[in-house]
């Protein structure tokens, strides 16, 4: 595999790692690396000047046609989301500009993107492959989770803990502690 094609897969890998790092939860400390990794991935993908062989060449040509619509439409969706009514407040500049951008983005889609001949077949059967993979993943996670033995029930609260909890609840419901 030549350098240009290798860089395409490196970009793809960095994009996936970036999205994985942005996950909330116990791994949240890694989320600060998410956006830089995604940006490096995008730059590698679209500013790769090395010669590329097939099948990556075909992929990159499709991505070049698809990317203008994708980024513009995503920007429009973001603006609409930030302008939509939240607690009865509507941000009209974001909302209106977002909808204009979304509608305009479809011009980019039909102007630059070239749909493959059997695009519906591609969509349906790729979705089928993805669903099969997700089904396998759910089965595997279920299998692993079922193998973990149940933990013993938690011990009863100590006198000190009981007093502490009573105090917190009393303060929260506005009742004097007796």
């Amino acid at each position: 595999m030549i350098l240009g094609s290798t860089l395409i897969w490196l970009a793809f890998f960095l994009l996936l790692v970036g999205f994985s790092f942005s996950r909330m939860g116990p791994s949240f400390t890694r989320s600060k690396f998410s956006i830089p990794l995604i940006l490096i991935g995008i730059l590698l993908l679209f500013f790769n000047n090395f010669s590329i062989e097939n099948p990556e060449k075909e992929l990159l040509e499709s991505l070049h046609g698809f990317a203008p619509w994708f980024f513009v439409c995503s920007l429009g969706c973001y603006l609409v989301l930030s302008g939509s009514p939240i607690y009865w407040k509507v941000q009209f500049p974001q909302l209106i500009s977002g909808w204009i951008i979304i509608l305009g983005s479809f011009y980019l889609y039909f102007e630059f993107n070239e749909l493959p001949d059997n695009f519906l077949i591609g969509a349906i059967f790729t979705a089928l492959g993805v669903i099969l993979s997700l089904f396998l993943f759910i089965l595997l996670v279920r299998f692993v989770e079922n193998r973990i033995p149940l933990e013993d029930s938690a011990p009863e609260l100590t006198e000190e803990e009981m007093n502490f909890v009573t105090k917190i609840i009393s303060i929260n419901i506005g009742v004097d502690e007796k």
Partner: protein
Amino acid sequence: MNSLLLEILYYIFGGFILANLSLIIFQLFSLHPYSKPTIPVVVQSIFIFISALVVNSLNDDLETIADAIRFSLVEGILGFIVIIPFLYILMIYFLFKASFRKRHFDDLLDASE
């Protein structure tokens, strides 16, 4: 084999390999003390290998397993590129509903002040 049937199989295996590889990367790079990814990652890797073997046997142009994985990933991403606009149209429908929704003011919010 019929070329349309072959194309369908390439798309199915492409989507399958793409999603499995993405999930493997996701599990490894979002690792935390409560996750147990060993069994899923090993089984998914085996499935990717088997799928690549099948694709390699179906396509005479592919010489190695690595070529089969590259080819399948490209097919999967190309298929996914076609799916994304449909997902966006669904999202735009919900955005449209969110943009123009009208809710009655909740008196409870006033009562709390």
